């Protein structure tokens, strides 16, 4: 602080932050009834944090929506309620109760059908019931190959479907938010962030995330090279205690942990920097079939 000279240089993270805040404000200004999808993961934490920043000192002018499969990790539910309450965010939760009452889960119905019912259908119903015309999602272009093709403002037809071959051109930072009744836009303010940016930002901004991201000894079973966490006593003899953490969070049935010693933020970032596998390797649902994410997105998953 010894020098008082003005600098006009904006760091990489601050540039990304400014871009995202601009996108979030644009949606708040142009849409009647926006909502922010909140999955409780690290990207969601960053996106919510950016929304808080965008409207400071006033309250975030739209609700957060958690599409809940009911199979998330217990720590996620705890964190969700704690985080939204602490930051005075309005939280809405939606579940596909009908499917749940039929007992749909990934073991009985298979992951493809389970996702279609508990995620895609639940999401589409929630958006329809809420009458939302814009929904923020935390997806990033570096995550998955079909997401690399996404626009920031991604148009969805009346049935919530995405047509990757017919996307609206998107130039500069000018976004087309014109839609007809029933149609909607998915907005991805974190499009240009990478996984490493997310972690570095979380570290610099001191953003809270679900403790599952930090390594500790957890009971798991090893299946198809994945470390699946154990939440019941189903396989007590195969269960072992492994020092591990989660790089990405989904349903506990379908999310594997990775062996790791990273129990602090700097250690996680260090681990990230030398990672040789993508974060989604632990997501069982991505490996169902070729282009499975693209297929899910076309049907309405975000």
């Amino acid at each position, binding site marked *: 602080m010894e020098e008082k000279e003005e600098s006009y240089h904006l760091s990489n993270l601050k540039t990304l932050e400014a871009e995202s805040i601009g996108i979030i404000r644009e949606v708040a200004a142009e849409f009647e009834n926006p909502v922010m999808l909140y999955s409780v993961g690290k990207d969601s934490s960053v996106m919510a944090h950016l929304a808080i920043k965008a409207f400071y000192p006033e309250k975030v002018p739209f609700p957060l929506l958690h599409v809940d499969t009911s199979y998330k990790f217990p720590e996620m539910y705890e964190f969700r309620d704690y985080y939204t309450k602490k930051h005075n965010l309005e939280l809405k939760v939606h579940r596909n109760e009908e499917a749940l009452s039929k007992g749909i889960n990934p073991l009985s119905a298979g992951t493809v059908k389970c996702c279609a019912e508990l995620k895609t259908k639940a999401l589409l119903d929630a958006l329809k019931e809420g009458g939302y015309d814009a929904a923020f999602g935390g997806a990033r272009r570096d995550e998955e190959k079909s997401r690399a093709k996404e626009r920031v403002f991604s148009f969805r037809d009346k049935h919530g479907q995405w047509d990757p071959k017919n996307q609206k051109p998107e130039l500069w930072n000018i976004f087309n938010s014109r839609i007809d009744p029933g149609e909607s836009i998915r907005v991805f303010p974190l499009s240009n962030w990478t996984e490493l940016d997310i972690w*570095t930002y979380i570290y610099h901004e001191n953003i809270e995330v679900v403790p599952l991201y930090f390594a500790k000894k957890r009971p798991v079973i090893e299946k198809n090279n994945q470390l699946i966490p154990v939440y019941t006593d189903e396989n007590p003899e195969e269960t072992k205690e492994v020092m591990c953490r989660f790089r990405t969070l989904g349903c506990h049935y379908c999310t594997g942990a990775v062996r790791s010693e990273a129990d602090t933020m700097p250690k996680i970032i260090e681990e990230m920097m030398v990672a*040789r596998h993508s974060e989604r390797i632990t997501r069982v649902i991505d490996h169902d079939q*070729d282009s499975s994410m693209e297929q899910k997105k076309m049907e309405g998953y975000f």
Partner: protein
Amino acid sequence: MIEDSQNIELLRITTAGSVDDGKSTLIGRLLYDSKSIFEDQLSSIRDYSKTNRNQEIDYSLITDGLKSEREQGITIDVAYRFYSTPKRRFIIADTPGHEQYTRNMATGASNASLALILIDAKKGIVTQTRRHTFISSLLGIRHFVVAINKMDLVDYSEEVFEQIVEEYKAFAEKLSVESISFIPLSALKGDNVIERSTNMPWYQGSPLLDYLENVNVAGGRNLIDFRFPVQYVNWSGNEFRGYCGTISSGVIRKGERVIALPSGRTSKISRIVTYDGDLDYAFAPMAITLCIEDDIDISRGDLISRENNLPAITGNIEANVVWMDTESMQTGKDYLIKHTTKTVKGSFSEVRYKFDLEKIHRIPAEFLSVNDIGKVKIELKKPLYADLYSKNRFTGSFIVIDQHTNQTVAAGMISKYKQVSPDKACESVKAKVIRYPGDKKEKAKSDYDRLSMQGTQCIYVDDEILQKGLCRGIAVDTDEYSRIIEGLCNIATESGVSVVLCTENEVSLE
């Protein structure tokens, strides 16, 4: 140890070239060789390559992520790819080469500062090469690297390379480009991509990655003209009222006097608010919230600027337009023009010409069709606060939306505007000519310096300068001499630029 990449520069690249020039393969190779692909992603690509392509690894699969792209073996839509080296961070917009998807190419180019143009050494320069180069230059990209690919198929011939270089240079002369570099390479074999190739000892330049890491693309950001389009009014009925937005250009300091358009009312910045605390100053492209001292009516779509450095207030613009919709342009029909945070109705009153993209020359046209680029006149139903695209990428650009289909039908770059009569508040800053007699050069120069320091857009002209340039060989004291000065002054003031004029001659100005 955990840096916020503070000093690592971000370079946004757009790629261009024709189908089958090997763009996706080159980017795939760049990512692969710089170890930016995760092993699980790589192994799925290896599997697919073996089963479906009968080859060890098809690099294009790294970027062609859509199912239909893999089936057809072409790139349909822009894919944004990220990679970083210890020296730089890159965002590459991998854009389609197919003519049908030119609009997606423009999408990728609009935010880039460097264009990577691919040419197939066997085919040489084709229409798409010219088309993409032209679009890139029109969209304001000033730095080009031309990768002449598939050198392995022409026996790594220096002659072939030189021939293409000469041809490309001749063509690019007509465009406003700052730097062009040429690199002979083979994306497939990896020659001159990361490592210098031993197959082309005659090439003395850098391999591609090395070039991309070191090319200087500074500039482009306007820190002079303060422009703040109001995006969102932050007020919930409580005491706080702030104007949210992203600074398009320039710098703003707490306590500075500002003017709000269209009201023309002036006030002072009382606070620059951010979640991380109030700031003393802020600059482009920061997203901030401004509070002002007086209670002025300001809403979304208004623009905050400085009294002595305003954008043009215009209802008539001329622009270069890329038409992107399958439905052709209709002159006279109302479209929506979205410019900064303001959307107004407007219609195309005239197509001045369109570009023949083969030869890059102007041809007459009545309207523009899909993938056409042309110069048009637009009449606006309400004024915009705009700058020339060449001065400001953000206040000089707009998109055109068809209000019936909601499609983004065109992208425009303002090249000329006609000021509408500014209201009283703006009168004081209307561009004017300030005259000095020929012997008052010192006084004129110091006046010019003062005005420039205050941020007024102005130019300085005296007899010496005129004699060296515009009026070379023309005697002072002639009508011809006067006519040139008058013409110059008119062009400048109509574009909102004041003129400090120091001449011995008689000139009659409006």
